[in-house]
């Protein structure tokens, strides 16, 4: 099997993946006194970096000019406010994947109070560094992605996945 020129992790097969932690930074707060909608996505994007590390396509993948990963589509539900200094715990569940994409959902919790603050469903695609076009995952990534997806297969699909946006009329 082709391996990358940098060390890669053995994937963590806990389901869901529960290793990403963060803290709400002062500059993430807006004039409403809570984390701004854009910074929820900043926090979620860092959890995506943690996920990508698991299958060997993290920062080094781009630094070594092998490839990149681009988000094609995202859905965010804002479930509850978080304030400056709040500790965050982000879990990640793989919903589906194919030769060049992965479909997954993050859930952000207040790490000490335990409540759900937001979710982020994403479609991520592998990109060839030279052509900047979509391309199949490298062997090492596909193998690890398969292991992670198998570990997550038995999880129930969260109700926030596959949502349509609309104003529900009573």
């Amino acid at each position, binding site marked *: 099997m082709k391996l990358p020129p940098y060390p890669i992790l053995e994937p963590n097969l806990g389901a869901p993946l529960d290793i990403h932690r963060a803290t709400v930074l002062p500059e993430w707060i807006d004039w409403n006194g809570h984390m701004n*909608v854009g910074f929820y996505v900043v926090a979620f994007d860092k959890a995506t970096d943690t996920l990508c590390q698991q299958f060997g396509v993290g920062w080094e993948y781009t630094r070594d000019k092998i490839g990149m990963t681009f988000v094609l589509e995202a859905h965010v539900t804002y479930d509850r406010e978080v304030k400056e200094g709040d500790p965050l715990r982000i879990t990640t569940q793989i919903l589906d994947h194919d030769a060049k994409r992965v479909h997954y959902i993050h859930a952000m919790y207040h790490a000490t109070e335990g409540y759900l603050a937001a979710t982020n469903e994403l*479609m991520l695609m592998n990109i060839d560094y030279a052509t900047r076009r979509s391309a199949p995952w490298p062997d090492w990534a596909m193998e690890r992605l398969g292991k992670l997806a198998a570990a997550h297969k038995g999880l129930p699909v969260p109700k926030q996945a596959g949502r*349509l946006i609309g104003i529900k009329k009573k």
Partner: protein
Amino acid sequence: MSVVLTYELPPLVTTAPLDIHRSTVKPEWVDWNGHMNVAYYVMAFDQASGAFMRNMGLGRPYVDNKLGMTFVLEMHITYDREVRGGAPLLFKTQLLDCDAKRVHLFHEMYHADEGYLAATNETIVMNIDYATRKSGPFPAQAAERLAKVWEVHRAMPKNPKSGRLMGLKKK
């Protein structure tokens, strides 16, 4: 009793779609892939939602005067094409639906010079009572302005990128 907006309201724009927001990709919005990072598309779209709320009369003075706030409940983003640092952005906004306390918006982000579609953002924004931090009806003056926008926008065809579900289409 409805909240009274005590500050001066801007002239109302009712074109369909609304074309009232411009922006530029800031250097700090660019990530290690050399393009605007996914989160900053959301930041840019949030400012376009801010422009919509300002047009309703619910801009920053609404919060500064402790009358109310507007919170985003949900959003769906499609990333259609890359934009680089310094790129000028133009936004078009369609009101897809509304009720007494929520608006359902659809924003398109274009490269302002080259004209291509860079991304779309469908979102629901809710009115919040300042004191209770719970949802509440829009102030009457804002509701009246919203009705005027809705009158023009309700006839527009829905953008085919609205109402999307995410998934891998299997061949």
